[in-house]
């Protein structure tokens, strides 16, 4: 009896198990296996030039200043761009969801539109917007007699410029999730709060925010993962420059893997990024549990 039950359970679980193994465990294990070899250009030419080198790629990585630059840039992008995306999308969600707002569907569509655009095409468009002389942003700044930075060429401005694109491109998606979360907040809670004399701010602070808790967790995890994997924007707009100021971890992985053909080393970068994303997700879940 027990064994038939177990067999049935296994049968029902098998699709999920197969999918997970093929699309998750196998690639992760293969990636790790690659990262403990020195697979490179010479190995492509002749497989006998492949060596098992244990954790040396990881050691080299931690000793490589470029890795730390990429790490810092990725954190910069995630820690500034992530919260900014969440804040902007929350504000947009509140505005779109407000009772006074008319044409809700229209605004929702407009704000969501950037999400469905093609990242590479948009990056090219933003490259023009950011052009130091002919870009519309600097033309506007010039008209207001404000300084006109060379957005993508200046080491100090390149990352903020890319963050701006990232936020513009991504906030619509999280906004939709927030709207769904907001619509799940029971109206009675607001009525009760109003009866207790709470103003707009206190309603937001003590009703809306706590009720959005699970939404925040989901949004936080999704945004963090997306932000830590940033690649296409700097790849199209700056190629990691100027002075490596927009070189991110995925960019570095790509460069090592497909420019220098150090596949083993690139796999090590990928694995470190995997661990970082895993850690970031865990931290967020712990924080939520405490609340």
């Amino acid at each position, binding site marked *: 009896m027990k064994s038939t039950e177990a067999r049935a359970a296994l049968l029902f679980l098998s699709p999920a198990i197969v999918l997970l193994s093929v699309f998750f465990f196998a690639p992760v294990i293969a990636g790790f296996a690659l990262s403990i070899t020195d697979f490179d250009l010479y190995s492509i030419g002749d497989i006998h030039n492949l060596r098992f080198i244990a954790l040396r790629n990881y050691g080299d990585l931690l000793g490589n200043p470029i890795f730390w630059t990429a790490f810092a840039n990725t954190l910069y992008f995630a820690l500034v761009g992530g919260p900014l995306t969440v804040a902007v999308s929350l504000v947009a969600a509140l505005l779109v969801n407000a009772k006074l707002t008319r044409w809700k569907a229209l605004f929702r569509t407009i704000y969501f539109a950037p999400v469905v655009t093609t990242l590479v095409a948009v990056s090219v468009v933003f490259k023009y917007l950011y052009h130091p002389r002919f870009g519309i942003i600097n033309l506007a700044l010039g008209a207001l007699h404000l300084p006109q930075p060379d957005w993508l060429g200046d080491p100090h401005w390149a990352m903020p410029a890319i963050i701006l694109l990232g936020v513009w491109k991504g906030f619509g998606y999280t906004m939709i999730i927030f709207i769904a979360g907001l619509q799940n907040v029971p109206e009675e809670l607001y009525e009760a709060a109003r009866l207790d004399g709470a103003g707009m701010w206190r309603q937001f602070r003590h009703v809306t925010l706590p009720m959005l808790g699970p939404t925040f967790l989901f949004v936080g995890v999704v945004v963090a993962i997306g932000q830590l994997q940033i690649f296409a924007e700097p790849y199209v707009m700056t190629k990691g420059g100027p002075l490596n100021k927009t070189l991110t971890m995925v960019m570095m992985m790509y460069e090592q893997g497909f*420019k220098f053909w150090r596949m083993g080393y690139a796999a090590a970068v990928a694995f470190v990024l995997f661990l970082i994303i895993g850690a970031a997700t865990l931290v967020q879940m712990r924080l939520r549990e405490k609340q």
Partner: protein
Amino acid sequence: MRGSWHVHRSLSSFAVRWRLRMTLTLALLVLLSCSSQTSDHRERLEFWALGSEGEAVASFIPEFERRNPDIHVVVQQIPWSAAHEKLVTAFVGEAMPDISQMGNTWMPEFVALNALDDLGPFVAASPVVKQADYFPGIWATNVAGSTLYGIPWYVDTRVLFYRSDVLAAVGFPHGPRTWAEWREAMQRIHDQKKCRWAILLPTNEYEPITMLALSNHSTLLTPDGTRGAFSQPPFAGAFAFYVDIFHKGWAPAVSNSEIANLYQQFAQGDFAMYITGPWNVGEFRKRLPPEMQDKWATAPLPASDASEPMGISMAGGGSLVVFRASQHKAAARKLIDFLSEPAQQVRFYELVGDLPARRTAWQSPLLANDKHFPAFRAQLERVAPIPKVPEWEQIATAIYDRGEAAARGTVPPAAALRQLDARADELLEKRRWMLAQARSRNAAVAQSRGGASR
């Protein structure tokens, strides 16, 4: 029983006939579609050409096909930014073209992949490609060990661009000829405040340091390409010269991206000298204001030692290579012959502005009577290849990185050179291992042969 048999048979014979008809029709269709694809029976030669060269070379093909009616060249134009990845991916996927243009700094990688065909026998038999007509430094970039893997198509090197009015005012109207003169010129420009800075050496370029080192007869790496030779006197001397330029305040420690408009700044006297390549001749002519046009000139790099005519610059440019896997090597070699003819080289210069690889082509009045290109012509006789190891690009990154640290004074030069050697040694570890493997294999082979003969 009989009737049913009959019916069955007629049915089956109908089926057979129907099937036959279908098969014939299909076969005819296949034949038709095939013949429409290969209506010309010419040999199909796939040629990958990059960037603007790829655009221009298409106009050379009709003449080649007219002369070789049995060859059809398919030019695949690939943007420079994607070319390197595409070539390596094509190699891994066994989808290589027959012949390709290749930046000569990429050659070592494709040699390591064992992807390129030995062109030595071709040159020995070629009526067109004569090694003596090529610049030795450029030719050398195409040779690995003693095997020739590419034929130079066009060349590229860097020389000194300078403000002739400023240099004349400090006593060097023809530009500095030696490092001593160079230093003196920079000192005077600085002291007399002729320009804001004497020279621009962008700190995110490895080329200036490398050219100074080549001029000072450094090999950059040890001759077998397994360790850095950066702490050795030739490189250390050049590095000291480089760092000193920044410490004396003759050059600003800025990167390329911090120079908003190079041409404007050169014209308004921000700096008097700049080391750059042939592509900037056209840009300087186009972008400098008209009144500046007779106030700039080019000169070969200064020599580190007064006994030499000039310094040594880097051998750059593009070559034509044939892939080992190609089934059309004879046709590919015909195309190389054609594109290597001096007349085609001159035409290529007219179309793209690429400098010809052959001395004969340089006799064209277009180049010989030019104001700015003769300096390149002179320099091309003294160019040297950068070390031919696939790891070079990463080592180059370390060179400018440590160069910048020393120029800014954050690391003493000697320490920077030690770090540079350490980084190069780390990157070249695999090469050392492979050489050791090859050596022990050879030793084993020799030993077993010795045993057999005994």
